[in-house]
């Protein structure tokens, strides 16, 4: 393994934190979805790294599944973005607070 595991983990964690930060800070739905993508990809990174560390292919297969599912999720997500925009002419998540309590 060329890169030490620790470095990889630190990078992935940073990525995850960045993604989470994006999710928490942004109010635009699309940006939130992008944040989620980043988080998921950080997981992919760890998986690939761990796969190499343990000398197994399982991790890499998991990454493929991950990517497929992410794609599906984004597809649905974007469809919903359009739907929401039709409803309120905005995709700011903050204005969707009709239900509370």
């Amino acid at each position: 393994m060329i890169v030490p595991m620790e470095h990889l983990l630190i990078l992935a964690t940073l990525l995850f934190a960045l993604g989470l930060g994006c999710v928490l800070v942004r109010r635009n739905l699309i940006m939130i979805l992008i944040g989620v993508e980043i988080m998921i990809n950080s997981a992919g990174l760890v998986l690939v790294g761990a796969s190499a560390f343990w000398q197994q292919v399982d991790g890499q297969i998991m990454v493929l599944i991950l990517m497929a599912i992410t794609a599906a999720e984004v597809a649905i997500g974007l469809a919903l973005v359009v739907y929401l925009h039709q409803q309120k002419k905005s995709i700011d998540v903050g204005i969707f607070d009709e239900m509370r309590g």
Partner: protein
Amino acid sequence: MDILLILILLLPLAGGVINACFGSRMPQPVPVFIACGAVIGSFLACLGSLTLAAGDGYRLVLFTWLKSGNFQADIGLLYDPLAAIMTLMVTGVASLIHLYAAGYMEDEPDQVRFFALLNLFVFAMLTIVLADNLLLLFLGWEGVGFCSYGLIGFWYRKTENADAGRKAFIVTRIGDLFFAVALLWLFALFGTISIEGINAQVSGLEVTTVTMISLLLLFGACGKSAQVPLMSWLADAMAGPTPVSALIHAATMVTAGVYLLCRMFPLVSLSSTAMAAIALVGIVTALYAATCALAQNEIKRVLAYSTMSQVGYMFLAVGLGSVSAAMFHLLTHAFFKALLFMTAGCLINLAGHENDIRRMGGMRQRSPLVFWLFLAGLLCLAGAPLTSGFFSKDLILATAFAHGDPFHLGLYGLGVMVAGLTSFYCFRLAYLVFAGDFRGDELPHEPSALMLWPLYPLAILGLTAGLLNLPHLFSGGSWLSGWLGRTQDVLHLSISIEYLLIGTAIAVFVLGWLLAALRYRKYSERQPSLVGEFLLNGWRVDDLFDLLLVRPFKKIGRFCSQGVEAGLIEGVLNGAARGCTDLGMRLRGLADGKVSAYLQGLVWGFVLIVGWFLLRALV
């Protein structure tokens, strides 16, 4: 014979129950016939079964009322001489009063209730008299209380009447509590509540225990007999119809206390302290009531206080250890006081339903017959020589004198003083009612014949009942003492002392008469003096009770219901409920509808879990 004995009790009960259940569905005079018939029947049954009672008496158990563990209470009768004489008196007087009431209540639409209660009262009173155990006696004891409650408040539309009934019930019930405790204690000691059983076993008891129990019984008796300190209800009880006053609050119920003490005499007499207490209660009441009677303005209230005073004499007699003196006075008093009340009822009618003696006067002209009857009663009450009251009162005073020690001589002195007061207020009453001209403006309401007829036998009895226990001095044989098996009560004083005592009695009688004549022969409006006011209100005992008992009771009640119930308990509960909802509101506030807030919650949760792991790792 058993059946006669049972009939004594059963007839009034049946009469009462039938009237209570079906009376209002029967045509008018029938309930009255039933009521009177029941009591007269009971009287006849009593006469018929009198022979049973002679000697040691007769015991009849009907069925077991309550049995649990080693406790057993039967419905059983103890028909001994004491009970027999009392039964005879109760049924006899009750019969006459029932007849009188039939006339008195003629126009009353609610007659049925009246007679039902009156019959039930007779039943309850007879239960007291005949009960062979204390619990059954207690049944009668409370039963008369209830009937008295219902009858005092008979004219319930006026709140005062109903309140007077309630007062009577509650005050006498205070006494009943003491009786109940005595009952419990006696059972705990002897394992039985049979009167005979208890009386047979008392000799082995410690004196302090006896004293305590006797004092409890005394308090119980005080409640029913309106003795100090539980006396304040009797005067108010005059709110009831006059026959009720005559029967319950003169002849029978108020003497139940005396009867109880006589019944339990073997027990009570073991403690000299208790005996002294009884005597003291008796004389204090006699004095108190006599003073109160001096200032009363309502004819029935005068009589009520006089009743209290005379019952005080009876207590005194018991306290002196003379059952026959007590019973003797009880009997004579029953006759003349019933007579007095019933004639008072006639007088009130004659005065046009006027109770106040200040607005009477000249009643002799309105009805000479009633005048003579009333006068007969008054003379007995005042202790005019040779009337029954004279003999019975004299026996009590002589017994006190015969004890000889300073305490009893003091009692004798006070007794004589009360006799003087009695004579005074009797003649005050007589002058105010009969002398001069009628001061009211109402038209007379003639009493019917039915109201007058029962008065004759009573007047005769009142005047002559002294024969029942005529002392040796008058060549009598003290028949009553013999019948009761209490020959030890017969006094053997020297002739000179007897003459002295009789002379004193006559002297105070005359003195009282003279003073009353002096003051009241001519009527004049007087502003009541301060003392008069004080006496009129019964020494303001009601105010004292109000201050000491009623107000604290209400205050605690308010504290409980407003302070504790509504304040503390509800407060805590509502506080808890509000706390929960407040917490709930705050927690639901977390979900404010904004996605970003929800996500923050998620992150905090993550931090929490990681923190928990770290904490676990470190600790």
